[in-house]
């Protein structure tokens, strides 16, 4: 009887080991690129490593441009870009896969009567060409521009979409989304921007060109203050087994929850 139990145990152990063998992938996945994608790709990498103990995941935050160059030169498996690829980059043999969309909400104090601005006006406000709310249908208050610190992905995204790179006349440069929301909630003349997922009811999100920012409007593209998070791969080279598995995992619907909790809108 005892022998029989031992035999069963051994057989079952072997079976588990074998099934384990079939699933385990070892190796490494290296990603390189956009600093804005840090939160999303970091959370995905962590979850992937947890499920696949043999794989090491690395992320090198260098910026979209450097990430695209890195993957083109074969220095990493997957390049990360927070903009669409240009035609000449595609011509180099690169493929883009949209992982998620990043919606940026324009927020004001709930007491502010302004509900809607178009992209052009937002740009003019941030460039300092419109300085009083009364010029755009609000109260007679000087507009207080709240932004993020240099290097922040949200700032980078906002400035590139509104065409205000390096010319924003910020009154305050805060280091977190939470601080931006708190500050805007406490000042009736303030305007700020924050990742869509983190906007709370203490502030009012403006509609841009008549479209309210929601997951749906970001997904269908009608809300314009958004940008894609793009995975860049080489068209003619196959990914390593580990990298392919990672790629499949993050573009599957399994990863959606992680992507949303990291503040982006999943598309797959």
């Amino acid at each position, binding site marked *: 009887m005892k022998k029989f139990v031992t035999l069963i145990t051994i057989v079952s152990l072997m079976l588990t080991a074998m099934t384990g063998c079939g699933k385990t992938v070892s190796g490494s996945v290296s990603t390189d690129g956009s*600093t804005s994608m840090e939160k999303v790709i970091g959370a995905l990498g962590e979850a992937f490593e947890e499920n696949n103990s043999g794989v090491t995941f690395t992320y090198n*935050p*260098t*910026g979209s441009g450097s990430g695209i160059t890195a993957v083109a030169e074969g220095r990493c498996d997957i390049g990360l870009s927070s903009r669409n690829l240009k035609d000449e980059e595609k011509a180099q043999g690169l493929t883009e896969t949209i992982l998620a969309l990043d919606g940026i909400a324009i927020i004001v104090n709930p007491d502010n009567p302004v509900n809607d601005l178009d992209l052009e006006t937002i740009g003019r406000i941030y460039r300092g060409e419109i300085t009083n709310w009364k010029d755009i249908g609000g109260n007679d*208050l*000087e*507009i*207080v521009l709240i932004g993020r*610190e*240099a*290097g*922040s992905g949200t700032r980078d995204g906002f400035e590139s979409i509104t065409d205000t*790179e*390096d010319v924003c006349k*910020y*009154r*305050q*440069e*805060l*280091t977190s989304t939470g*601080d931006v929301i*708190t*500050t805007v909630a*406490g*000042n009736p*003349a*303030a305007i700020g921007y924050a990742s869509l997922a983190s906007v709370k009811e203490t502030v009012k999100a403006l509609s841009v060109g008549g479209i309210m920012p929601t997951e749906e409007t970001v997904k269908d593209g009608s809300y314009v203050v958004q940008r894609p998070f793009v995975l860049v791969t080489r068209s003619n080279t196959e990914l390593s087994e580990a990298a392919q598995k990672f790629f499949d995992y993050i573009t599957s619907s399994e990863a959606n929850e992680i992507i949303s909790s990291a503040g982006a809108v999943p598309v797959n």
Partner: protein
Amino acid sequence: MKNRKRLMENAIHGIFLVLGLITVGCVLLITVYLVISGIPAIRKIGVLKFLFGKKWASTAAQPQYGILPFILTSIYGTAGAIVLGVPVGFLTAVYLSKIAPPKVKTVIETAVSLLAGIPSVVYGLVGMMVLVPGIRTLFHIPDGASLFAAIIVLAIMILPSIIKVSLTALEAVPKEYEDASLALGATPVETYFRVSVPAAKSGIAAAVVLGVGRAIGEAMAIMMVAGNAPNMPKVFQSVRFLTTAVASEMSYAADGSIQKQALFSIALVLFLFIMLINAVLNFFLKHSKE
């Protein structure tokens, strides 16, 4: 037996020496590291352009690395905190050591100790939620996050160190001095300001320098109330300090970039400022012993 005892003594001396050297080692390590990582950017940018440049735009297409606004903001902010904080702290110390009844003294001293124990992020949070909107409505300006808000927060933060060190200095004044003054017909208040305070002056000076050190090194609290735009300092303008300049951009600066190196250079400048303040502090402390 005697030999063993001596061996034991020597061994323990050795252990104490090693423990003492840990501190020295840390200071040396930090100094060397800061100098090594701070010099390259200053070389690339140029000392004058770095220290006296008026514009900081580290991520612009044509980056500019001038830290004069930060240096001036740190100096003005600290000076403002001293101007507001020292009179309050100093007079509190005089009151506590000479006039206050024991019960009142216990309550105030406990409150001061508690104030010293509040984490700086809490100062920042209260400043952000209460002080900044308060300044905005009180002075009718568009936004309250400013040098002025930072000065007030710093003034409150340096109070405990000023009160405690001045208190110790005042209490160390021999009672005979005061008795003699009173016996000669001076009133108690005259005695405090003409006899006790001059006798404790170097200790009080040390308290002020300590306050300066605390104010110039603070980052978290003022990051939340000062606005952080790299402007030249004005009282109601959003400003960035040396400390907050390092803290706010460090997390996003790419490794090896000139931006990151420049942040280390700012830290080096701040470090030199603090060394200078420490030298002054030592000078006063040495003076008070003589």
